[in-house]
Each structure stands twice: as C-alpha cells, then as structure tokens.
C-alpha cells in the first residue's frame, strides 16, 4: 500500500510522516512535490505538518492553491482516504475539504506538549482499528489550533458524528483543563460528511515509537492500512 506524503514549501513534518509510514509501519511511502500534478497511484494521501509558505497570510491559506491540491480534491471526491495533520489540517480547512477555521491558541503561544485525545468515531479510514472511546496520548505542536466553526456548522458536525478526536483527560473526560488551545467542544480532529477526509491538530506520526515517548499514534496509520486492505484498494477513488 502506498502513501503519498505531500511536500509544500515550508512543510517540516514530511520526513516524520515518511519515517512513520515507511520504517515503523512498513508500508510504501513517496514524497509528492506540491507542484506535481499526479499522486502517482497512491492509496492514501497525507498532508503533513509544518509552516507551508511560512503560514504568512493565514495558516494553510496559500498551500491550498498548489497544483497538487486539485488532484487531492479529486482523490477525496472519489472516496480516497486523505489525512491532514496539523498544518495539513489547516490546509484542508482552507481549501474547503473540511469545515471550520483555526484561531490562535488561547495561550497566544506556540505549544508543544503531549495531550490526550479520545477517539470519538471508528467509522473513518483513520480510526477503523481503534476502539470507540479509546484515549490516545499524542503530542501537539502548534500556535493556531484553536478550532472554531459557526454555531450551525458546529451543530451539524456533532449531529453527523464528524468530530473524530476530542481533547480529554487521560481517563477520557472532556474537561476545560484538558483543552490545550481553546477549541470549541474540545475538538482535536474532524472528518467530512463522506468520512474519508480526516484532519487533526495532534501529531500521530510523532507518536509511533516508544523511544520518542508514545506509540499511541500508530493506530491511526494502522487504521487506514486496514481500511484500504479490506476494501481491496477500492477506497482510492481517483482514476489511476
């Protein structure tokens, strides 16, 4: 199974995602340059973290215009699994593949630390191997991860079970203190209505080996391998 790791100018978690997929998970991974027009037959698309275009206008605001994003949008429309992590999530918000927006963290500071997130739904390709309510200990590293959506959008997200990850305590309780950045409803990650596009602020790819503090994030990548395999590769809806 092949993962396309999209590289924007300013991506800086691209190597980490590649390492997690290729060397920890043992799957094929390929960097895809943002100016490329093809995903080269990938089964999964991963938009990594970083500061695409320096995040100078708004986080992810310029990356959405990269040529590869047209292909990513088509791939997603065809049902292909797409995950955006941190800046990748921000890009997905900017290009409209996911609803809502990011505000600066409540602390008005960049925050890098381990947090706990609860898996809310397991019917997405990126949570299929999780147990409902499973709590993952994975790190965040962002300055703008304070998720915001208009009230009607938020209501719809909750009604459609599109909230996939929520910040909680270690025991899985949604509390204000467990919310690191002020996100509405403690939202850490969401999916689209088709459920094949997932974005989250925490970094599962940074939590795939005990040596670096946790392997709780690996299940997210394992999930998509399981989903694509059991669908016989049929998830990838882009014409190859």
């Amino acid at each position, binding site marked *: 199974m092949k993962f396309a790791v999209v590289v924007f100018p*300013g991506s800086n978690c691209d190597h980490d995602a590649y390492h997690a997929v290729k060397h920890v998970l043992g799957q094929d991974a390929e960097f895809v340059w943002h100016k490329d027009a093809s995903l080269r037959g990938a089964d999964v698309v991963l938009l990594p973290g970083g*500061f695409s275009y*320096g995040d100078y206008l708004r986080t992810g605001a310029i990356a959405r215009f990269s040529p590869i994003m047209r292909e990513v949008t088509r791939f997603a429309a065809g049902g292909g699994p797409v995950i955006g992590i941190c800046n990748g999530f921000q890009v997905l918000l900017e290009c409209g593949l996911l609803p809502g927006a990011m505000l600066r963290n409540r*602390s008005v500071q960049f925050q890098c*630390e381990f947090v706990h997130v609860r898996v809310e739904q397991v019917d997405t390709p990126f949570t299929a191997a999780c147990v409902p309510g499973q709590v993952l200990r994975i*790190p965040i590293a962002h300055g703008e991860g304070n998720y915001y959506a208009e009230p009607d959008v938020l209501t719809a997200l909750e009604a459609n079970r599109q909230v996939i990850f929520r910040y909680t305590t270690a025991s899985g309780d949604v509390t*204000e203190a467990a*919310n690191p950045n002020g996100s509405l409803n403690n939202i850490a990650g969401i999916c689209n209505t088709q459920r094949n596009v997932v974005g989250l602020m925490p970094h599962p790819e940074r939590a795939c*080996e005990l040596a*670096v503090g946790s392997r709780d994030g690996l299940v997210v990548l394992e999930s998509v391998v399981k989903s694509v395999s059991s669908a016989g590769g049929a998830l990838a809806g882009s014409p190859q």
Partner: protein
Amino acid sequence: MTSGPISDSVLERHGLKRDEYARILEMLGREPTLTELGIFSVMWSEHCSYKSSRVHLKTLPTTGPRVLQGPGENAGAVDIGDGLAAVFKIESHNHPSFIEPYQGAATGVGGIIRDIFTMGARPIALLNSLRFGSLDLPLVRRTMTGVVAGIAGYGNSIGIPTIGGEIGFDESYTGNPLVNVFCLGISRADEIIKGTASGAGNPVYYVGAKTGRDGIHGATMASAEFDDKSAEKRPAVQVGDPFMEKLLLEACLEVMKTDTLVGIQDMGAAGLTCSTCEMGSRGGAGVEIDVSLVPQRETGMTPYEIMLSESQERMLLVVKRGREAEVERIFEKWDLHAVCIGTVTTDGRMRVKDRGTVIAEIPNTALTDEAPLYRRPMQEPAYLAEVRRFDPAELGAPAAPAAVLRRLLASPGVASKRWVYRQYDHMVRTNTLVTPGMGAGVVRIKGTTRALALSADCNARFVYLDPYVGAQLAVAEAARNVACAGGEPIGATNCLNFGNPEKPEVMWQFAKAVEGMGAACRALGIPITGGNVSLYNETDGRAVLPTPVLGMVGLLEDADRAVRRTFREAGDVIVLLGESKAEIGGSEYLKVMHDRIAGSPPALDLAREAGLQRLLVAGAKTGLIRSAHDCAEGGLAVTVAESCFDTGIGAVVDLEAVGAPDQALTSVMTLFSESASRAIVSVVPARVPELLELAREHGVPARRIGLVGGSTLRFGIDGVPVAEVALAEAQEIWETALERALEVEPALA
C-alpha cells in the same frame, strides 16, 4: 577610486582607531574609498576579526582523533561513527536581542542554522543558553518573553527541534541579555563542504533573500558598549524570514548532493563583504563581484550599503564552471533565484565593481589573516580581593532547611523552564529521546543505533569569582551533563561572553577563563572545534558576569540506553557519586538567601571529574544506572527534588550518609553546597554492590544515601527529619515559579 582624507568623526562612526586607519593606508598604499573604509570597518570589528581574543583562543585544544573540522570554517565537525559527522557550533546574538528581542533572537537562530547547513549537514537539533536580568523589572520580562518567542518563531517554523539549554538570571544582564544559540547537524563524514573559493573563472552565485538596508553595521554595533542611545540603533537589527531559510536549507542540501559546488558560505555578520573575502582567503584566490547584479529589496541602495547589509537568509556559492544550469534548476524548483554576481580570480583580491567600475579593491588577507591583532593589557580586578574575604560565619544563623528548599525551588534559575520550552517545538523530526527539562537533550541518529546527548552550560557566578576555575567548572558541568545521559563527551564549542576588552580587568577575566577552559578540555580529552566570542557586553560601563558557555556533544553508542534524570521506581536506591564538601561560595543558596556572590567556587579535581564521567557512561551502557542527575545549582537538595519531579514518587535521604566521615558538614552545607564532580543516581537494590564496585574502579567515592519512595522529599538524620516538603507542594512551587515571575497566567492545560 579617489576620495578625500577621512575625518576623525567618520572614523569614529566606523569604530576605527587612528592607528588602525594608518594601517589601512599602508596596506592599500592610498586613501580608501568610503566603501573600502566600510569594508575594513566591519572586517576589523571585534565581532569579525577577534582582534582582542585571537591570541588567547589559539591556546585552546582543537584537535583529536574524532575531529574532522576544527575552528576556521563555518562550524566544527567530529566523527560519530557509521561514516557520519556531527557538525555543530554555538553563536551569540546578544546585542541585537537587547535592541529588538524577538528579531534579535530569531535571526540568531537563523544565523547558526545557516552555519550548519552551509557545511552540508542537515540540522537536527538546537539548544540555547540565555541570560537575563531580574524578572522584577518589566523591561527584563519583556526582553525574555520576546527572546523566547523569537527563538520559537524561527526554530519551530523551520522545523528543527529545540531540545535543551539553560537560562540564568543576574542583575548584570539587565541591559545586556545573553542569547547564545547552538545548532547541530549531521552529514556524511566525507561530504563536508567548505566555505572556499577557488578555480579561476568559476562563477560566484548569490541566492536567497534580496538585500535591503537592514543590519548595516550590525557587526560594528556588536563591538561596542551599550549606552542610553543604543535604542536608536534599532535599524541595525535584521528581520528574519524562517520560510525563506527553510527553502534555502532544502535547496542547498539538494544542490550539495550534486557535485556542482566548489564552496558555499552564508552571509551573516558583515554580509556580502565577509563571505566574499573569507571564501577567497580560504581558497587562496580572489573574488570579483559587481554589486549592481545583487538582488535588491530597495531602490537607490549605494554600493556601501549593499556590501555592508546584514539582510538575512542569503548565501554565496562558488559553482563549478559549466554546471551553472544544474544549480539554477534546483533553486528554481524551490522558487529561489540564483544570480551570478561575479567570478573567482587568481589575484587574491576582493574586487567590487558597480556597473563595471571598480569601487573597492582590497587584498583578502588584509581583511582576514592580517587584520589587527591585540595583546591587550590585563590586570586582576579589584573586586576579587573583596569576594575572597567572604566568611560563611558572617551570614548568621541559617533559615530552616525546608524553607530554604522552597525558596530555591522558586528561584527562576532553578525553577522549571516548562513555560519556555513548551513554546519550542522539541519533538519535530521524531528523534528526541530525552526532552528539555530532563537533563541533557538526547537525539537519536536515524539509520544507526547511536544517539547524541547535548548540553549547554556555564555557571557565571563561579567564573566571576575565579575565571580560571569557573571556566573549568563550566567545561566539567557541560561534559558531566552529557555523561549523565550516557553520552561520552567527544567535542565542544564555546561562546565567550565578556565585557569591554579594552578594560584590563575584563581582559584578565577573559584570558584566565580561556586558560582554564583549555586546561579542563585537555584533561577531559575534549576538543573545542569552534565557537564565538562576544565582547563589549556592557551597559553604561558595567560588564555582565563573565559567561563562557560550553556547548557539549556526547555520543551514545546505543540510543536505547539513554538515561534520564528522573527516578524510575519506588524502592530504588539513591547513590551519591562524588564528594560533598563545605563549598557554599558562589552558590544558588548564597545568592537567593543572602543576595551575595562571594567566596571561592567549588574546587575541581579534573582527574576525579574524568573518572566520574567515565563511570556515568559505563553505568549507562549496561543499564546499571537507572537515572542520573548532575548535582549543581541548589546542591543535593534541589538535585534530589528534581529527580523526583514528574514521577509522583518522593525520596528519603539520610544526610549522615552524604558527607565523608572526615567532613563535619552542617545541614545547610550538606543540602545546599555545590561541590563539583557529583551526580545523584538511582539503581535497583540488587545492583548496588555492582555500582559501588564500578565507582571504586573509576576512583569515585560513592555512597548509598537513600531510597526512592513516599510522597515527600525527606532529608533526615537518624530518621529525624531535617527538612521535609510534600512532593506535590515542592513540584507546584517549582513548576509555577517562572510563570509567576513573568506574571503570566498559568496555562489551563
């Protein structure tokens, strides 16, 4: 190329002395043009020429079996096995960080990262060593918040983890903070690239950000004291663009994989001037450029401004003739334009043209090797006699030890720096095995079994009290910190922060410190592969504490054996390695409880220190040592407390077991003395004899002093508590002190 005679006021504005000007006349055989004067001014500034420090720096040990690159290049390099090199250096950005804290610190990070990737190495870790005044002052709080945000803003964006460092506080840094930044990168040992220009006719390329008027005379500013007019120097501080640097980093590393480059150098201090003449000088060649070809951000820039601009994120490359298209193509991919601005020549001169007309022509060596060299007068400072007269008896009856411990844990120098390092992305690149706040930072080297332990250290109070011994202690502490993590110290870089070298007392401090540093490095077998000198750290005539910071690199053969500072399990035995003596001079205790910096620093036996470090590395290799923490600021009590923090498990320590039988130590001395060459380690009970035997073999005294367990930090004699603080309370004090001092709302998380 003619101009009138240069007036005194013009010379003064350029920071040049009359006799230096006479030398310029002699070297050129004529009056310099204003552009040439500007070029001499920056290249002969203290910052670029090391004119006051070079004679002393030459005495430092810079060679060793692992050294691949010593001083003189953009960074040093040591062999770490598997055909790989660790390329590293530390550099200061003190003056800009006072004038504009965010940009000053940010561009400091940008500058040191360029020094590393210029050598062909991919940067994988950053450290910083910071000093600020008292946080009681709003100015200092603003400076510190800005510096931390600037470091975070640059390092996070470019995606290099900041994995450790140190922060100290003293009133002397109020108007002159220290911002020292260390970067380490990894390259193939046989693919290190030099900053050299050679091969007549090879094209010289400029790539990166356009040149603007920012930072003109930054190097000259960094070579003068501050006064009340320094705030007006704000335009001399550069503005950083980490996104541009990220593009440059990736593009340069990609170009370096091809075989198209002769040499490459970043444009840091003194910008285009420095990179041009240094590359030419190293390669024994000349370089000719035309400033009209240099991409410019502003209109109407003069050649003088273009040559002296310190705009950030710019590189100068010498490309092999005939390979230009390959190089240009790679930069285009990254949306960067590589522009040919000149060629390499054979005449050893730096020739600058403006639309074809020569406006400066100077032999490279006049600007580099033949720059002024001073053996400045030295004199032992008068304050030393006074501080040496210190007698602990004059302090009166000590406060209750538990109260002292609480005070020390709340001291900004000791307190948790989480507020700081939480703002740094310390996990990106997924190599960080030991995160900030847990001792030396440790990063694994992917594709190998190895890891590197990194630490930056200096106790400036000790250096102030005795520059020779103090600098030795700084080397010892930095090396001990990486050894605690299991790393064998294999190389170091230094950042020497001192006052005005024209004052004999400051020069004396500097010379003694360098001498001590050299002696310690020789005794411990650690080469210094490069570094940086920052002088004129003075405000209104008052110098900072002499602060020679060491950036230390330790090598772990087995990344899985990295040791953290925290205790692991209740029931483990706490062992003190080394000897506690009645040494309170220069201690945190004396500063916090009595507001004094006095006495003598702790004595240092370098053979004992070397034995301790070998013991720590050996004990880590076999998994015998389960935790190890260097015993430094705040002494034994603070060290034990920090070993408990974040574990939820307390400790019980028997103070009678701490001191050697022949040392009748008071409780205060036992708890808070800062004797050198000590570490607190923990071990499973069954392996205590093994550890004691290993210690004996290494000539290190080792004593079983307590047990991990309980919910308090309990220090007692014969079971009677001398000091006892609930662990939760101690941790709360330690964790929140810095935020409280900065008057920042504690984060909700």
